[in-house]
């Protein structure tokens, strides 16, 4: 094992592994360090891994649309088949309800512009397509103890239906696949290796020091620490140069039995339901994953120390999530007790990720993923390699942001839109991005 490389990647989640793959593919020697036991074993393993295109900004929509093509040709993207198994894209389609809190009109405009097909469903069509849903409009989402929780619907919902969305069946495996491909190109992964210091020399980054005292040296260090990334930016002393910051947010996702006729295998779509403040994602075997969309009435659980948080779902959030889901799906049988996950997002100020350099030459970051970047991981690796290459070739990405041309559309994605120095983007201000 060498203790020096062309690049060190901190974090072996799905994005860190993708960054490692693209840097290694570009000819760099790469060492990846992660404090956890395996690739994707952190927040990645708890991701709902939804592939969708419903974002608020042109660059975010294009990024998701381009990345989806990489997931759909996973072996082609990796260039190698992992003998331990390959993650699979499962197509479900995505139903997005028209609600006052959503940006459906903006999304429709962007989808028209980029050629992303969708259907508009009026209330009658929505009822005919999904007769198991109560399509009453209950906005805004409420807590159970709100006296208006059980109010009658104010009107009937309409929706848009997009057919190419879906999810990745095993998020941790997808990170392992990326790590396998990166190793194929010579990258080295070191697990249970915690970074405690960012080394610098001559005014630029020089490597990292690990908790066991080992020093690794490289002229490029990339922070892909997920919920630990803001701490790592603090270690590097680069946080003051950022206009957008990120911090860990605790989130719960529940696993429940899907009602008869509304299974994945029945063609039940994923739903983005800001009317009740929950999303539903069907999964193989007759269950749903139910997560939240940060409605205003729900307190956000910001976490000071990402190594210490309650890793069990709470009865309180379980009950409100189930009661809301039962409004939308009258046949839904509320489980007796919570089954699910509590894990951490790394949420930026505007719920848009940061893919960027830093004020310290050689130190880069892919962070602030805000619970909505799993889908973009294979492309984020390419973004970071493009920014790192441009800087190596003398371009100042701050002054001349890299324009990344997507292979699917031929359109340019302005990587400056993911700058740490940006003004906050106008988004939904939630995980929907």
């Amino acid at each position, binding site marked *: 094992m060498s203790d020096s490389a062309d690049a060190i990647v901190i974090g072996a989640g799905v994005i860190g592994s993708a960054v490692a793959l693209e840097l290694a593919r570009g000819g760099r020697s790469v060492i990846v360090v992660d404090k*956890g*036991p*395996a*690739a*994707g*074993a952190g927040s990645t*393993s*708890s991701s709902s891994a939804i592939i969708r295109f419903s974002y608020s900004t042109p660059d975010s929509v294009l990024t998701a649309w381009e990345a989806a093509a990489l997931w759909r040709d996973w072996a082609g993207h990796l260039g190698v088949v992992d003998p*331990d198994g390959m993650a699979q894209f499962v197509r479900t389609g995505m139903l997005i309800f028209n609600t006052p809190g959503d940006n459906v009109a903006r999304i429709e405009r962007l989808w028209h512009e980029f050629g992303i097909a969708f259907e508009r469903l009026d209330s009658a069509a929505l009822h005919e397509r999904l007769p198991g849903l109560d399509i009453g409009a209950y906005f805004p989402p409420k807590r159970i103890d709100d006296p208006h929780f059980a109010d009658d619907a104010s009107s009937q919902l309409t929706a848009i239906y997009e057919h190419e969305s879906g999810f990745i069946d*095993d*998020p*941790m*495996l997808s990170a*392992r696949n990326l790590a396998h491909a990166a190793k194929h190109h010579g990258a080295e992964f070191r*697990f249970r290796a915690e970074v405690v210091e960012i080394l610098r020399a001559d005014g630029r980054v020089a490597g990292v020091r690990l908790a066991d005292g080992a020093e690794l040296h490289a002229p490029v260090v990339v922070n892909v620490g997920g919920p630990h990334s803001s701490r790592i930016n603090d270690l590097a002393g680069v946080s003051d140069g950022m206009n957008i910051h990120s911090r860990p947010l605790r989130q719960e*996702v529940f*696993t429940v039995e899907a009602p008869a006729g509304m299974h994945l295998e029945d063609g039940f779509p994923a739903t983005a339901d800001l009317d009740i403040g929950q999303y539903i994602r069907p999964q193989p*075997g007759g269950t749903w*994953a139910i997560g939240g969309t940060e409605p205003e009435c729900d307190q956000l659980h910001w976490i000071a120390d990402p190594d210490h948080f309650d*890793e*069990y*779902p709470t009865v309180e959030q379980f009950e409100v999530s189930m009661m809301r889901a039962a409004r939308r799906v009258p046949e839904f049988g509320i489980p007796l*007790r*919570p*089954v*699910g*996950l509590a*894990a951490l997002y790394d949420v930026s100020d505007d719920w848009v990720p940061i893919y960027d350099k830093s004020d310290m030459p050689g130190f880069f970051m892919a962070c602030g993923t805000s619970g909505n970047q799993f889908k973009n991981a294979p492309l984020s690796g390419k973004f970071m390699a493009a920014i790192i290459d441009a800087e190596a070739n003398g371009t100042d990405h701050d002054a001349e942001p890299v324009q990344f041309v997507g292979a699917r559309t031929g359109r340019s994605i302005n990587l400056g839109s993911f700058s740490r120095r940006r003004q906050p983007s106008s988004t939904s201000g939630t995980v929907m991005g």
Partner: protein
Amino acid sequence: MKVRVDGDACHGHQSCAIAAPEVFGADDYGNAVVLIDGTIPVELEAKVRRAEGNCPERAIIFDDV
């Protein structure tokens, strides 16, 4: 009580290792493994039941003793 993990079903959330760290750990792939050979000590049975009940993938399986 005896317990095993369905390695194909496990997605590596590690919620079992949080519930019962004496019984469950992670292998080099991040998947759950049972650390105890044979019968689970009685004092750990409640923790193991909690781990089984909260596994989102239903990957923890009890075997008859």
